[in-house]
């Protein structure tokens, strides 16, 4: 069986390498999309914002932002803080483009928070600095959200006791700045706590997404043989029918692995991507290709023709890829979306890369890899049974 399977594998690889579509799906498109997305959505790791904070309030809550959050962003290298005299000076420098952004904390900011009233933290953004503006706005909104939550708690307490504890108000800004979300705010923006940078994430996501298309060529191979009319000849040959199936799956496995490895290396060399410790990456890649084989084989076994199989497989591959978050990194508070990634091998793959890269420990890839392989096994068993039933002239 081994020799026959290898003979079929050799023939299939020869055909696939002559078939330009396999090059397109396995290498050109994922690499191209990674480059494209990297250009459209620049990595915030390289971003440095020139900004100023104008504290017109002078209260504790405002100080929490100006002296708590902002210095943390400076420490992370995201922000170059420029000292300005007043709000007018900040406004003028933003208008001139000398500053990318400026945060204006208005008079009465702390008191308003203490009283549970609506208050505005103004963010000024220079023309043409939309990305910097989005980051600045995100920082302000995150701070406001944290302060609002704490402020509400204080307000409730004040209402129940009949008065507001001045000490509590004083500690409000400090409390807000020390909240986990704010503490990690700079990290989130600069990607320090998310070790897969944007480019690496995209490259891995694209590779994971397209490997499901790459293995299609193998798992629809039996339908292709039937379409070509060569299946009777294969079945008439003095080989075990299982050898035909084995040859096809082996071809898909090799193509899938090759495309993933080449993309990992190419994205590292060309785009500076880093998927984390190589051993963990290799384990995750093997697991993902196994899952892709199982899922695609199962979907393909419900089809009567190669075309039908291709259509069904494409739909499943796209849905799983989208659910798995291959196109954009999901933020930590993405809630349902983040949970949904658990039903996709792509999601586990990216989760595994992220975990091992963040800790620099390849063993952290093992758990996600096991989950991915489980996808492969659960789908491959019924696929093999179904395909054997259909393996006839």
């Amino acid at each position, binding site marked *: 069986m081994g020799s026959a399977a290898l003979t079929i594998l050799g023939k299939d690889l020869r055909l696939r390498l002559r078939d330009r579509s396999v090059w397109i799906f396995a290498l050109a498109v994922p690499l191209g999309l990674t480059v494209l997305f990297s250009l459209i959505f620049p990595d915030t790791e390289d971003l440095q914002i020139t900004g100023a904070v104008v504290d017109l309030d002078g209260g504790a809550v405002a100080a929490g932002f100006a002296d708590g959050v902002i210095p943390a962003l400076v420490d992370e290298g995201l922000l170059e803080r420029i000292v300005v005299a007043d709000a007018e000076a900040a406004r003028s420098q933003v208008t001139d483009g000398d500053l990318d952004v400026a945060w204006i904390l208005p008079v009465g900011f702390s008191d308003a928070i203490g009283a549970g009233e609506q208050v505005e933290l103004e963010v000024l953004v220079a023309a043409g600095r939309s990305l910097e503006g989005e980051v600045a706005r995100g920082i302000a909104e995150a701070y406001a959200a944290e302060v609002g939550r704490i402020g509400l708690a204080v307000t409730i307490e004040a209402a129940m006791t009949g008065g507001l504890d001045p000490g509590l108000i004083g500690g409000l800004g400090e409390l807000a700045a020390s909240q986990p979300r704010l503490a990690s705010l700079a990290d989130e923006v600069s990607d320090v706590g998310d070790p897969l940078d944007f480019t690496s994430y995209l490259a891995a996501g694209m590779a994971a997404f397209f490997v499901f298309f790459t293995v299609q060529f193998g798992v629809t191979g039996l339908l292709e043989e039937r379409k*070509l009319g060569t299946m009777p000849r294969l079945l*008439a040959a003095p080989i075990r029918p299982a050898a035909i199936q084995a040859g096809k799956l082996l071809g898909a496995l090799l193509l899938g692995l090759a495309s993933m490895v080449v993309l990992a290396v190419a994205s590292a060399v060309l785009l500076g991507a880093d998927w984390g410790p190589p051993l963990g990456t290799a384990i995750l890649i093997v697991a993902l290709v196994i899952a892709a084989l199982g899922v695609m084989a199962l979907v393909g076994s419900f089809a009567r023709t190669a075309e039908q199989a291709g259509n069904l497989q494409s739909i499943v591959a796209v849905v799983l890829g989208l659910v798995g978050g291959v196109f954009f990194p999901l933020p930590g508070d993405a809630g349902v979306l983040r949970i949904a990634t658990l039903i996709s091998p792509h999601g586990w793959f990216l989760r595994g890369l992220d975990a091992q890269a963040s800790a620099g420990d390849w063993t952290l890839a093992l758990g996600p890899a096991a989950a991915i392989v489980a996808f492969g096994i659960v789908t491959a068993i019924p696929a093999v049974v179904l395909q054997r039933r259909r393996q006839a002239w």
Partner: protein
Amino acid sequence: MGQVAQQVLRATGLRKAFGALQAVDEVSLTIAPGETYGLLGPNGAGKTTSISMIAGLLKPDAGTIEVDGRTMTPTATAAKAAVGLVPQDLAIYPDLSARENLRFFGRLYGLPKAELTRRLDEVLSVIGLTDRADDRAGEFSGGMKRRLNIGVGMLHGPKLLILDEPTVGVDPQSRNAILDSVEELATEGLAVLYTTHYMEEAERLCDRIAIVDQGRIVAEGTRRELIATIGEQDVVRLTVAGDAAAAAAACERLPAISSADAEDDVVVCLVDGAAAALPQLLAEVAASGASVSGVEVREPDLEDVFLHLTGKALRD
């Protein structure tokens, strides 16, 4: 006992049903080395199902198959190694060259490298594709593809070569080349099982012929033996204008006519002594209200045998 051992193929009591359709019903046949055996019948007669079982692609519901003394089943690799199959539909890879196609299937049949190289050149020569050996099969003409299809079947030197309607859709020149190749293979001692619905091919190639209809072999023998089932009769074909069926019914009433069948505007009669019976025949047709526009008298062929046995014409 010696006679039994000489048979390359021995199929006995084959039966195969697909749901309510009995595709093959009690088919038995034997083929000796160097013998070309024809399965002659219209499309849907059960020829392809029969050879699918003989090639080990389908498991019979009943019956046994032995190829070169080995029992054939879908997993019988030793028996399969003795069979070369040329399916009715082209079974080659268009993106591989002729040589690559042959090499791939040769490897599947386990040919050693040196023998494979030798056989490649031999087969390419036999099928007339030596000059195009390294061209993609997809670029070949229909006839060249058919020849390559046959070449793949005979590459590994099988004891039994099964050809399922190998000339369907082939131009006359390629058809002749294919028939020449098959004749040559038989002279080299290969047993050939050849299915066709072309009477001329069966007459030219086959030492023995089985006439198949509705899954059953309705007659078997040499061409001479099959034609003898009609007797010493002549075939008279009358081209008529008018109701051919009524004309055939009128002709059949004559004592000299053993059968008369209408096919479109032609009445085909089996006649004892055509010269004497012809005037009466023409008179009966005229009396039925039809007029005769053409008369052909000839010796019977397998087409007439098939018509006589089944009441149907041998055609698509």
